[in-house]
């Protein structure tokens, strides 16, 4: 298990890949948000992750780069909080802030540490947004993803396998939001009319896990 860890560089690559995915799918995310929200989720996520990637190189006041996982994630979280706004800014921002706190001043994360950090992130999302399963939010992609990750790790899966499982579950969770009637976020204003559409935040969360699975699934640099 000693070599089955995620390095700082891999975490940065994850974020870079997430930025790539949200900006590629900016139009699609905004289209989903047009149907049941206010048509800004794609631009919100792209603006946020662009700011994150600009910031990551200089996460310290002295202009140097983060060398520890908690520094990295806190910088990502603060950047999202201060550049996105809307619902997704505080939610994704808190997600990364809490990941950082839980990960602590380390340079790598093994499977358990990765899981613990992600769980803390999910806890932050729930603390801020009070969403529960079936409310038709990003929670509905994120919670199943973490359950799948843990299940895979528990049965001896490595990080690559476990994050691939998490991505599958995130996709399934995202797809399962389609028939739901939203109870949180803007989509809830539509009542029954929110049913029949994917949740935009669940969709971007599936991209977050796609990025993670992509990054770890690749041959190490």
């Amino acid at each position, binding site marked *: 298990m000693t070599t089955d860890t995620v390095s700082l560089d891999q975490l940065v690559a994850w974020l870079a890949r997430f930025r790539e995915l949200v900006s590629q799918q900016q139009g699609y995310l905004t289209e989903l948000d047009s149907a049941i929200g206010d048509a800004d989720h*794609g631009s919100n996520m792209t603006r946020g992750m662009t700011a994150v990637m600009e910031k990551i190189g200089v996460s310290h006041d002295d202009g140097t780069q983060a060398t520890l996982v908690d520094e990295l994630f806190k910088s990502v979280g603060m950047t999202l909080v201060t550049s996105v706004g809307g619902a997704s*800014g505080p939610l994704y921002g808190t997600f990364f802030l809490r990941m950082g706190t839980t990960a602590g001043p380390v340079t790598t994360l093994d499977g358990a540490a990765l899981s613990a950090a992600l769980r803390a992130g999910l806890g932050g999302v729930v603390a801020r947004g009070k969403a529960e399963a079936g409310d038709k939010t990003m929670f509905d992609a994120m919670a199943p993803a973490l359950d799948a990750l843990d299940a895979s790790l528990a049965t001896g899966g490595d990080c690559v396998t476990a994050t691939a499982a998490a991505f599958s579950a995130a996709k399934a969770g995202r797809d399962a939001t389609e028939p739901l009637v939203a109870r949180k976020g803007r989509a809830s*204003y539509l009542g029954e009319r929110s049913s029949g559409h994917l949740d935009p935040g669940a969709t971007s969360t599936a991209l977050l896990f796609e990025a993670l699975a992509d990054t770890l699934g690749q041959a190490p640099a």
Partner: protein
Amino acid sequence: MKKLINAPEAVLADALTGIAAAHPELNVDHVNRIIYRGTPTKAGKVALISGGGSGHEPLHGGFVGFGMLDAACAGEVFTSPTPDQMQEATKVADSGAGVLHIVKNYTGDVMNFEMAAEMAEAETGVKVSAVVVNDDVAVEDSTWTAGRRGVGTTVFLEKIVGAAAEEGRDLAAITALANLVNASGRSMGMALTSCTVPSAGKPTFEIPDDMMEIGVGIHGEPGRHRVALAGAASIAQQLVDPVLADLDFTSGPVIAMLNGMGGTPLIELYLMYGEVAKLLEKAGVTVARSLVGNYITSLDMAGCSVTLLKVDDELLKLWDAPVNTSGLRWGL
């Protein structure tokens, strides 16, 4: 997309440049996207801060000035501003008597203002309290959901509570008054067309020529129901009925607003107000004051909303008190 803009990403920055040029009496912090009064908040006066996504002009920047807000934070179009902006606005506006955050009830706005209050209190010890406006009767009220949207009552609240703050009332009294105003107002909106968010580049929803959306908010979102296009009298009925059903407005005078969504000309807004006034009279509602125009908009959406606020002599006096902002100005 046909808009008077340079580029979708630049809309907010460019609009703030124009606001700064047009209003030398205001300060504009272009980095933090804050509009605040040219004259600092006087010592002992509670500061009123609001903010929200852009695209609702004149709300909120147009209500900064004597008798209303001390500062307004502008987010990206339809996207709540960020906590650091609000924290900065809180610091700029506080004169020691504390700050009221006026928040419209949207998940994003609520969360960002909460974070801002935590950050501001932790950093500078400023006392912050918040009112969350949730007056839109189109949305079912429930503790299981995000609750009702904040719409037209925000305008009334910023004016009335603004006047009380100029009188020197303390933060507890100001907060209580803000909650009273929120509890006394109800709104309902409709749209003939969607609006186009600049970064999206096309209308948020498509709607046939013979249909309209009833129960829309101020973010170009579809409404609660799509129904056949109707005449102004029928539209007025579809807006007024749910408002009157939600709260008894017959026990005293009201202030009535017929608000345009941004793409509807004034002649139609007056025409609609005429229909609304007839229905209110029939329902035994006495209109003490009225406001017709574009006050809380949704970009270029065509449509309107009705807001009623129950008032007593005290609230009326605060409504009539002098105000000097670009969006509302009288008595000065």
